């Protein structure tokens, strides 16, 4: 998982904060590890904080598994799932599920 500084306006709700967000008195406003919430935007603006450090997962992490491994995992998933994705979010979720199966198989080996 990588870390990245992002403008408060660009942080998506649900993103994990990589470090404590503190005010000018060094008081912790939001702890590291918390998920960013919409209300935080207002809180940070109130304190004049423009950027925060967030955790970013590599979008290319799937490539650590071979095409063959991914195909095997997808076939395993298809034994429980009898439909094909219809939109981007379903495709994304299936991709994560495939990766999770690959990881658990790798852990067993």
């Amino acid at each position, binding site marked *: 998982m990588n870390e990245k500084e992002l403008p408060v306006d660009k942080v*998506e709700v649900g993103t994990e*904060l990589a470090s404590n967000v503190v005010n000018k008195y060094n008081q912790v406003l939001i702890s590291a590890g918390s*998920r960013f919430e919409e*209300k935080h935007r207002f809180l940070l603006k109130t304190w004049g904080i423009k950027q925060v450090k967030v955790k970013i997962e590599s979008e290319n992490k799937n490539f650590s598994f071979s095409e063959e491994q991914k195909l095997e995992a997808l076939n395993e998933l298809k034994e429980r799932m009898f439909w094909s994705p219809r939109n981007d979010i379903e495709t994304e979720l299936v991709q*994560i599920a495939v990766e999770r199966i690959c990881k658990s198989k790798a852990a067993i080996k």
Partner: protein
Amino acid sequence: MSSLLHRIMNDVQELPTLPTVYHALTEAVEQPIILIDKVAEVISKDQATAFKILKVTNSPFYGFRGKIDTISKAIMFLGINEVKNIVFSLSVARMFSKVNKIKGFTQQDLWGHSIAVGILTRVIGQIQGIKNVENYFLAGIIHDIGKLVLMEYAHDEYARVFEMVNQKKCFVHEAEKEVLGIDHSEVGLLLAQKWKMPESIASSISYHQTGVIDGKPDQLVGSVHLANFISRLFNLGFPGDNFVPQPNMAVWNSITIPNKFFLSTSNKLFEDFDHTISVMLYS
């Protein structure tokens, strides 16, 4: 009405009510002025609950990481509604902890699935910008409560349901309809009514499989529906069968999730799930 449902309706009337600590919290929330210390005192009298609340509050799920050392602080940081919902979840888990397992399905399996749906429903609520997401967690965690009631009050008949699930490779709710003539959402609704749960929570129990109420989208019900689908897809917990239903398109049309949201947050999600399971079920 099926005779089984009639019997269960009678049995549900005999079910224990929720513990005193939960009722005390409910009363406190309804007061015009909430006295945190008084509420904390009520919770602290139930030491097992107080201990678990502190463990849950300090879990990575909430991000406080060991800083909450009193119940008063937990209430201040999480809000009384969130604490109340944690007490509720812990009470229900304790109430059904002695349920006899069915071959191929235990109450531990179901809690794993329920906790996953609770966490995911909350995340989906946050994405939608819902201000009070406490009820989202609760709606998710309780959506399959009818399965626990069936395990407890119709144990032998319910074992036949799981025989059918294994033989026919079908969804639990399909086998329930065929074997029992009712499904867990109808049974869960009875319990929600007995416990006087809010209408929104009762609707989540009744309609989580379709994700809509009489064909109309509903944000909370839709969120539970999607969370149920995602938890099954990711294999988080076990709801009794292994299958992944395709979500209702009407729900996708009413709930927007930004592209790559789950790609960028899934590791945190799995971490939250593992930790919450260990705190709520095994500590």
